């Protein structure tokens, strides 16, 4: 049995995962970051991206949008706006969101609107990417 640490992934609308985990890989602002048991205390933010964690020697994948992670000596807490398994992603909705965002980007927008649309596009693309990658 590999060494484990306690992992909590909490999305705004539900508790996504709560339990032991052997290895966690997150997308931080500057790239992928792996967390093993006994990691030093760390706080970092998670942009929209992919997340994977290993339980019982098996990798689980999830799409995550905007959140942060706190790593403590014995546990890690991830708080995010949303977190979904690849098979839970609504591809149709994501595609619609993507198209809507692209449409808006073609139009004239204020800087604030531009950032918002870009973030929306980012979320939609991330969802599509992850569902295509892991759920066929």
């Amino acid at each position, binding site marked *: 049995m590999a060494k484990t640490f306690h992992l909590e992934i909490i999305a*705004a*609308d539900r508790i996504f995962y709560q339990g032991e985990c052997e290895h966690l890989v997150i997308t931080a602002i500057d790239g992928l970051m792996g967390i093993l048991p006994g990691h030093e205390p*760390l706080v970092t933010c998670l942009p929209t991206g992919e997340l994977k964690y290993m339980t019982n020697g098996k990798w689980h994948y999830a799409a995550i949008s905007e959140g942060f992670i706190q790593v*403590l000596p014995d546990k890690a807490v991830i708080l995010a706006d949303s977190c979904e398994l690849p098979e839970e992603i609504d591809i149709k909705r994501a595609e619609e969101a993507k198209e809507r965002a692209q449409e808006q980007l073609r139009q004239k927008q204020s800087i604030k609107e531009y950032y918002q649309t870009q973030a929306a596009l980012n979320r939609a693309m991330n969802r599509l990417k992850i569902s295509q990658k892991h759920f066929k």
Partner: protein
Amino acid sequence: MANMREIRERIASIQQILKITNAMYLMSSSKLKKARKALEATDPYFYKLQETVISILEHTPHTRQQYFDRREEIPEDKRKKGYIVITADKGLCGSYNHNILKHTEAELAKAPDIDNCYLFVMGQVGRMYFQKRNRNKENFVDAEFVYTTQNPTLYRARDIAELVLEKFEKGDLDEVYLIYTDMITSSQFECTTVQLLPFERRHFSVAPDGSLKKLPKASFSPSPEEVMSYLIPQFAKGVIYGAMVEAFCCEQQARMTAMDAATTSAKDMIKELSLLYNRARQAAITQEITEVVGGANSLEEN
């Protein structure tokens, strides 16, 4: 004694109202179920968020982050205060709106200069109230801040958080408070004020035994400033969303209780009125009989 027609009309009108209140009761109870579910789903996030941010701040080295800037150089009576107030979109929910409005008034009264207060009101009832209250002063209620309180979404919370953070960064606001109704138990509500900005460190570093703990500093990647500038908007958004969900649930609960009470008292009233009506009818019949008998008697005597 009121005449029969009057009573009949009154009963009919009460029955009409009874139908309305009963329908609203049913509607709000089904909406409440939905709101409850949302609240239960969000609660872990809401509390974990606060807990985590508290513990992160305990490990944070001193940072010169703009959201921590208390702007002490600005005197108390010159500080611009912003209040995000969450009210309902509709009335007919008992004392829910009155309580939150009263609470807001009390908060405003605490401010040294009301001219430096800015309100961001969610929900029609509150907007109307505060717009009427200070007609002579422009910008008291932000005219562009139009958000409904129904079916709260994270998207709306994000919008609101971005708006106030931007105003804070620009210096249009020096302090931001959030006023909403908190659900303590399913029948007990309380209006609460939460300070959103500037971020106060001392709110957080309270040890349970009152002693100052020496905490190990956590590492921040890439840097504490960067993480904070990302985390605080996230936190603000989470808190606003949580408050919205909580307030919406309270509103539905309040409406349900109010409508239930209205339905019951309408039923009571109908009961009382139909008693009166029957009595009046009986009296009229008795009178008629007496008249007929009296008439017949007088005929016989002749």
